[in-house]
C-alpha cells in the first residue's frame, strides 16, 4: 500500500464537493495507483469514526456517520417538499428501473402529471436511461448516484425490501389490467423486455 497515494486519494475525496466516480479518480490519481485497494483501505481506516467513506455504486464520498444524525447540531436542509405523486414515482423508478413513463403510469393507475417527473429530475434523483428497443423506442428512467446519496444506499441492490418484492413477483412492470387511461401505449412497451437489466425480468417467465 503506497501511503502517499492513500494520502492523495483521501485529500481528493475530502476536497471534492461531489462524489467521485472511478473516471475522476483515475484522472487525478498518480499513474499506477491501486485505486480499488486504496479505497478499501481508506474505508477501513474510517470505520467507526465520525466520518465514513461511502460507496455509491462506485462513486465515492466522505459523509458523516449515519448514526450521529441526531447528535449533530447542524443546520438541516429544509427538505424539498416532494409531492406524494413524486415520491411514489421515485419509488417506482427505483424499484423497476429502467422503466418507461407508460409503465410508471400503469403501475400507479394514473396519467403522470407533468410536474411529477420534472421535480425528480430537478432534484437529480432520476435521469433518462436508454431507450427501450421496442416500437416507439420509449425512453426509460433510472435513478442517479445522487438518489443513492440522498437515501444512503450504496447500490440499488440495497433498496429496502428489494428481495421480498422480487420474490413475490411484484416488480413485474407489465400492465395488469387495461382499463386505465395510460393503457393505450402500454402494449407497445412490453414486447421485448429480454435486453432489460431491471429486476422485472422474471416476469418474462409468466
Amino acid at each position, binding site marked *: 500500500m503506497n501511503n502517499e497515494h492513500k494520502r492523495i486519494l483521501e485529500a481528493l475525496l475530502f476536497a471534492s464537493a461531489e462524489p467521485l466516480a472511478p473516471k475522476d479518480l483515475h484522472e487525478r490519481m498518480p499513474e499506477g495507483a491501486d485505486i480499488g485497494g486504496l479505497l478499501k483501505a481508506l474505508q477501513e481506516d474510517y470505520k467507526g469514526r465520525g466520518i465514513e467513506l461511502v460507496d455509491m455504486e462506485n462513486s465515492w464520498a466522505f459523509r458523516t456517520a449515519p448514526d450521529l444524525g*441526531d447528535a449533530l447540531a447542524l443546520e438541516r436542509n429544509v427538505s424539498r417538499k416532494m409531492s406524494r405523486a413524486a415520491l*411514489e414515482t421515485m419509488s417506482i423508478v*427505483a424499484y423497476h428501473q429502467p422503466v418507461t413513463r407508460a409503465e410508471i403510469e400503469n403501475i400507479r393507475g394514473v396519467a403522470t402529471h407533468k410536474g411529477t417527473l420534472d421535480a425528480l429530475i430537478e432534484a437529480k434523483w432520476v435521469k433518462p436511461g436508454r431507450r427501450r428497443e421496442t416500437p416507439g423506442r420509449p425512453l426509460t428512467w433510472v435513478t442517479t448516484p445522487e438518489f443513492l446519496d440522498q*437515501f444512503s444506499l450504496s447500490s440499488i441492490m440495497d*433498496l*429496502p425490501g428489494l428481495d421480498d418484492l422480487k420474490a413475490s413477483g411484484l416488480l413485474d412492470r407489465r400492465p395488469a389490467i387495461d382499463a*386505465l387511461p395510460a393503457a393505450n401505449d402500454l402494449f407497445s412497451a412490453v414486447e421485448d423486455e429480454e435486453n432489460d437489466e431491471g429486476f422485472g425480468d422474471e416476469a418474462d417467465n409468466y
Partner: protein
Amino acid sequence: MNTETSRKAEFKEDPPRLPLNQIADETDQLLLNIDGYEGPLEVLLELARNQKVDIMKISILQLVRQYLVFIERAKALNLELAAEYLVMAAWLAYLKSRLLLPKTDDGIEPSAQEMADALQFQLKRLEAMQKSVGELMKRPQLGQDIFTRGQPEGLPIITKTRWDASLYDLLSAYGDIKRRGDEQHYDLPEFNVMSTEDAMSRLKKMLGNLPRKGVSSVWATLQSFMPERIVDRIYGRSALASTFTAGLELVKQGKLEIKQDAPFRPIYMRGLYAEENVE
C-alpha cells in the same frame, strides 16, 4: 400467478358483505378526500385496505361492489369525478358480471378469474410501491441525518493552453499586414528636412571634433553646428530644431551642456566626456 389456486377457491362462494352503513361511511369519507387520491386505482386500494386483510385475500367481488357504490354516491351528490374513475367503473362492472356468470372459456378473452387476478396484482403492486416510499423515507437522509463536507475546497484544474498556430499562419499574418499596407498606400508630400536622427549623428560627430578642455569641450554656438549654405528654408528650420532637440537629448544623457545668457541671446553648447576618455 402464484396465488391462483387460492383465488379460484374464493370466488365460489358469495363473499361476506359489509354492513351497508359502514360502506356508506367509508364512501363518503373517500369522496370527502377525493383530491388526496391519485386516481381510481388508489381509491380501490383504499377500499381494499378497509377490508383489513392482505390484499391477496380480499374479496374482489366485494371490492367491485364498494367501488360501484362509491361511484353511485358521487353521482347522487353531483360530484364531478375525473373520467378515469368512470372508465374504471365500467371495467369493474364488466368484471363483476363476468365473475357472477357461469364460467365460459372461449379461449380468446381472458377469463374472469384472470381479470380479477390482474386487478389484485395491480393493487398489490401499487401497495408495495407505496410501502417502499415509506421505507425509503425512513432511511437516514442527506442533509437531515447525514452531512456532506461543509467547506469543500473543490478540485483544482490547471489548464495548459496549447496554441494552435503554424509558421504558415504567422507568415500569412505578416503578408496581410503587407497587403493592407499596399492597399492603403498613398504618396506623402516629400519634405526636405533634417531628421532628428541625422541631426544627432552630425552633432555627435562634430562634438567629437571640438577642441577639448579637461572633461569638456570648448563652448560653441548652436548656430555653428548648422550646415553651411542652406538654401531651403524648411530644411534650415528643421535642421535648427532637430539639432537643438538632439542637443537636449544629449544633455539628458549627460554628454552635453547648453547655456543661454538671456532670452534671444545665442545658445552655447559644449560636449562633456566621460572620465576614462580624457587624454
